[in-house]
């Protein structure tokens, strides 16, 4: 006991900022989120390897080093047997229970920190009311600042920081700011305190960014994957081509029974289609194949969807057209010709779907990545929109396993080329030529 007090006394007598200019990680300091949980059973960890040195045994007796910046918290009450189902009402009940048990709000800072960590378990992190209930745990009165000096000196640091943490959680979850929260914060901490200011900043900046998205997403996303997929496809294609139609296979009226078509409710298919793309297909050469590429990721806020693309290689005419377009100087008015003169040809620029790396013929999002569903997509396209598709060979370039995708991040296919390998900094610096104001390298084991 005295051992712990001694360290704090020692620190308070020295001047901290000068000595703590470096943060040394101690062996007992918490290194990740798991170390902060005090309620785990530590017995299984210590049974296997009994501590041999003194330090480890002392550490196991005292517990992990708790720096003055962080706090330990117990989350026992959120796991109690009285809670039958973890929902919003249960969360609010736990807070009420705490208020009843400790009318003096003893240990309220740690309780609020624990509650903030446990919010995702109760599914309540996007709910403004639970945050307001958390704020009501603070006692009104003692933490109200009496002068600007107290604000500048950061009196009641833990309480202010915890309230700032609540506000920051609200900001990161994207909850709409409310004047009621401001009033509560003002009553608890006073009008000039930091949590109030932080929330005022949130109130000020949130409306500025709310309407800035040129490809807007609805504020409340629908729950079903199918509706989300439809939203994603709309977002990807509606601004590109206004004539895009999103087709849902299950809603199509004619379902021929001889197709290998999954009838289960959980698998669905949505794809996009434009009349321009039909025209493109009719102009393509029949001997070149069409590729299915994917799955590529699209994000709708934090939700990720995977989509597939039906693509064809760009043709020579397209490349020629692009080159001509680049040579053409739009600012040059010396050679103006009218399209109504005899012998004039109209220049039709390539459509939006013709890109440098391929002609895009259709996009689709699938409920579950089965190859049969992809065939379903092709069959539907062929039947309803592009009858020419049957004359093409379709090559499947999909990477259907997620593991393969993550492995690609550090293995670039250009690793072998010498011009693209930028050698590691240490090697580059060591091999950089040394000017005359450098001593000769004393290392003799390097062969020159």
């Amino acid at each position: 006991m005295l051992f712990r007090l001694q360290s704090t006394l020692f620190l308070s007598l020295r001047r901290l900022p000068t000595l703590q200019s470096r943060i040394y990680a101690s062996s007992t300091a918490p290194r990740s989120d798991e170390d902060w949980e005090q309620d785990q059973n530590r017995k299984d960890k210590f049974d296997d390897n009994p501590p041999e040195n003194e330090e480890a045994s002392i550490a196991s007796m005292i517990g992990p080093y708790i720096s003055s910046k962080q706090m330990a918290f117990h989350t026992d009450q959120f796991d109690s047997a009285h809670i039958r189902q973890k929902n919003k009402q249960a969360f609010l009940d736990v807070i009420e229970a705490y208020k009843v048990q400790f009318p003096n709000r003893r240990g309220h800072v740690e309780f609020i920190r624990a509650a903030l960590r446990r919010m995702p378990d109760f599914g309540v992190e996007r709910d403004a009311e639970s945050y307001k209930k958390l704020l009501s745990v603070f006692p009104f009165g003692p933490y109200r600042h009496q002068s600007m000096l107290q604000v500048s000196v950061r009196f009641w640091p833990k309480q202010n920081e915890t309230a700032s943490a609540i506000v920051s959680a609200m900001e990161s979850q994207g909850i709409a700011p409310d004047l009621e929260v401001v009033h509560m914060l003002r009553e608890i901490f006073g009008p000039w305190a930091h949590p109030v200011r932080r929330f005022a900043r949130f109130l000020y900046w949130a409306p500025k960014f709310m309407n800035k998205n040129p490809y807007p997403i609805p504020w409340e996303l629908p729950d079903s994957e199918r509706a989300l997929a439809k939203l994603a496809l709309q977002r990807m294609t509606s601004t590109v081509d206004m004539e895009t139609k999103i087709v849902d296979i299950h809603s199509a009226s004619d379902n021929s029974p001889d197709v290998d078509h999954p009838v289960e409710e959980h698998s669905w298919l949505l794809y996009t289609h434009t009349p321009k793309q039909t025209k493109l297909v009719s102009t393509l050469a029949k001997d070149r194949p069409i590729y299915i590429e994917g799955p590529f990721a699209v994000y709708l806020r934090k939700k990720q969807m995977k989509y597939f693309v039906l693509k064809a290689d760009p043709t020579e005419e397209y490349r020629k057209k692009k080159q001509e377009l680049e040579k053409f100087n739009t600012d040059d008015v010396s050679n103006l010709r009218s399209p109504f003169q005899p012998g004039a040809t109209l220049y039709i620029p390539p459509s939006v779907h013709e890109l440098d790396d391929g002609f895009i013929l259709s996009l689709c999002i699938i409920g579950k990545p089965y190859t049969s569903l992809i065939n379903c997509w092709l069959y539907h396209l062929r039947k309803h929109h592009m009858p020419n598709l049957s004359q093409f060979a379709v090559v499947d370039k999909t990477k259907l396993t997620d593991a393969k995708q993550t492995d690609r991040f550090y293995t670039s296919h250009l690793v072998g080329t010498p011009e693209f390998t930028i050698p590691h900094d240490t090697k580059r610096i060591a091999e950089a030529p040394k000017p005359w104001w450098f001593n000769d390298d004393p290392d003799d084991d390097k062969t020159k």
Partner: protein
Amino acid sequence: MYFRSSLRIITPIRYYLQPYATSRSYSILNNPYPNCQSLSASSPLSQPCRTFMFWRANINRELYGSPTKALATKKRRRLQKSMTQIIREGNLLRLFKELFVPEISKWWKQVQPWDRRHEFFHNDYLVIHDFSNNDEIKKWTVRTDLDEGVGESTAELVPSGHGSILFRGNISSKMVNQNTLYNKSGFAIMFSERLLGSFLMPAHQKGWTYFTHILLRIRGDGRFYEIRFHTPDHDHHHWSDMYSMVLYTRGGPYWSTAKIPFAQFFRNNMGRISDKQHPFQPLTCTQMSISVLDAADGPFELEIGEISLLRDLRYNYDKFAYEQYTLPPYTTTYN
């Protein structure tokens, strides 16, 4: 101990740089670090003094760029000859000629009047990063929270086969080590090269003055990215000052063009939006970066074809998109 009002610098400062009056009463008794500069909000510092302090901090920052570079640089610097050694060899004049004269001439060129600039007209655009040339990648660096030791996000910058650049990786918001100065993890940033001026100080960006918009040709994945222009002022308070704006992407295989006016860039310090907002001056920008803004777990990919600046005179909405309020006194920016 809980009240930190002044920053104490331990290294001794030369006599001519010491401020005129250290403290009113009993400086020997009160001053814990005699002969040392003690900084506070009210300490009288002249501009050359502030510039010197920024220069001291900046050479270390320039030389020890990243932790991996730092060790190699430290080892290399140990091999440098000391000043007395150079004088004994009789090479002092040579050192001045080879090291300092080019720096001074570079500095003089920077200070030269800059009114003789090329005029740009409406709808003129200047490509500042053309990624169809594969050498542009060498000017960019990527840093993630894995480098800082906070998290487990990975990222890489790779040339795609068709004339553009791919900034892709995986983001995870799991905090690996809470013993750092970061309170969140889950970020990946690509930095452009820093504009170097004379004497290892950042330079001013002179070529961007007549432009009003930044144009990016991108193919994103529906995530929110952030463009930042780093404007570290020659001051130790503002070394992390930047002007940033959210870059919205729609998913999909179609290219999109993001045209963002300079008037919509808001000021940011250490990643937090500043209270005092001013319009962005392209002259003060030294570095550009693009980062992933939402810490959503999962892979990300941003394909950039080109970054260019545009002069568009039809943007009549405002000179600056945010209000430039003056703050009441004693307002601190601690969040």
